[in-house]
């Protein structure tokens, strides 16, 4: 760690730039959340695959399995992205009158998340004008234990072969789900939540949604200002990171550690 550029009395040393970034993110997020005009957002290819997968299941008369992960940390970023995608998938399924099965459980955090998921699916069916098609038995709770949940999930797929399986934000069980779905002949769309899982699922799924794409996809589909703002602010911060790195590297190579000291301040 480089030494700090300066210190402010009453503040802990080395935390100023962090606080500055936090405040900047908050201000930018609030600005984009309240702005009338939504930011430009490019089409995410994997989203087309979701529609295609549901369409294929409808033609085959088979159900669609969708899971949002095991929510091991309750309502964290990945789970919320999963639920956001779920509300879209549920609407398309309701429109096509395709059976949608949403396995829940898998962790202690999942107990708190489950009721929200049920509400989300119910709302989607109501918004499509088909509340009578909503069946709570299609949102089974398998277990609060990760691998017991996987056992239930896999068993359900084996008994009721799906046309498509869309699984987001899972932990290590992602591979078990993908492999079983492949074995059952389903079209698999996997949205892993980390680098390691992305690498292994690249070999085991028909369509792969990168961790960041899932977030952008959720925002794109929901058109919800706060989710769109999230994507916009991420891009701005990435631009900022690139700028800091390029300037910093040029400075460091020419003998100045100004940028390193600035960000360490």
């Amino acid at each position: 760690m480089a030494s700090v550029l300066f210190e402010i009395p009453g503040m802990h040393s080395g935390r100023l730039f962090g606080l500055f970034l936090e405040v900047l993110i908050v201000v930018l997020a609030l600005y984009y959340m309240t702005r009338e005009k939504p930011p430009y957002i490019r089409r995410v290819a994997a989203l087309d695959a979701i529609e295609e997968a549901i369409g294929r299941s409808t033609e085959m008369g088979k159900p669609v399995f969708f899971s949002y992960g095991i929510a091991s940390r309750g309502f964290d970023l990945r789970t919320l992205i999963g639920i956001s995608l779920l509300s879209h998938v549920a609407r398309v399924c309701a429109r096509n009158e395709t059976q949608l099965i949403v396995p829940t459980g898998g962790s202690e955090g999942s107990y708190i998340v489950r009721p929200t998921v049920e509400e989300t699916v119910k709302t989607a069916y109501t918004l499509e004008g088909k509340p009578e098609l909503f069946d709570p038995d299609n949102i089974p709770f398998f277990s609060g234990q990760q691998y017991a949940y996987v056992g239930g999930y896999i068993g359900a797929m084996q008994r009721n072969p799906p046309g498509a399986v869309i699984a987001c934000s899972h932990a290590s069980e992602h591979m078990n789900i993908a492999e079983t779905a492949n074995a059952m002949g389903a079209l698999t769309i996997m949205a892993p939540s980390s680098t390691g899982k992305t690498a292994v699922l690249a070999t085991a799924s028909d369509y792969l949604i990168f961790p960041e794409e899932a977030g952008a996809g959720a925002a794109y589909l929901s058109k919800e200002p706060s989710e769109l703002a999230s994507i916009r602010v991420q891009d701005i911060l990435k631009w900022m990171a690139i700028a800091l790195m390029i300037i910093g590297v040029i400075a460091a190579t020419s003998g100045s550690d100004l940028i390193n000291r600035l960000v360490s301040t």
Partner: protein
Amino acid sequence: MIEFMELSIAVFGAFIAMCMFSTLYGKSNPLYVFAEESYVGFATGLVVIMAIMYIYRAGIQGILAGDWILSVGIILGLMTLTRLSREYAYISRLPIGISVAVQLALSMRTIIFSRFIRHINATVMNLFPADSQLMLYRWTIFLSLIPMLTFFFYTTEMKGPLSWSAKAGEYILYLSLGVVFAQTYMGRLGMFVGFMQSLTLPPWKIPILISTMIIVLAAVVILDKANLADRWIPG
């Protein structure tokens, strides 16, 4: 002389492990369900007893030692139990809200350092150090990181140099994922090798392992061929 305890653990442990492995046969069967339901029951029991122990040690012991403010934690914790009732579930909003707010603050106050600033710091380096290997590493990280970041832009139109950079980023991303795949395989294999080692050491366990393997495999095949596998599994 092998103690009965040790022997029974080795025999039952190998048997139930093989029951779990039987899922690799490709079909659900009662032996697998036996292993799975045993795991759900015992593991949930373990988690519960550990949670009680934690509440006792970090909470009750503290209150008994005079740190009375911790009793707020116990009261709020008891309030979360109202989630079990449809009528009074709203009461649980307060403790859950407080708990989420603390987690959020803990994460927000540190993640900017551990997942942003420190990584910018680590990238901002002199690209011409004396050590040639270090120079190669630094150049590679710098030149691979920026295209990969541009690949993940969503609110900027991909035109001109940006689209070239994003394309390069995509190739680098797949190359990197290859490396990550290999490391992931190493991890899972390490677990498997380590586990099989625990079933073969000390050597008196070897016959137990081999016989349970044969028994479980035979049982699964027989159940499948006799169409009995489906009868005893939960529907």
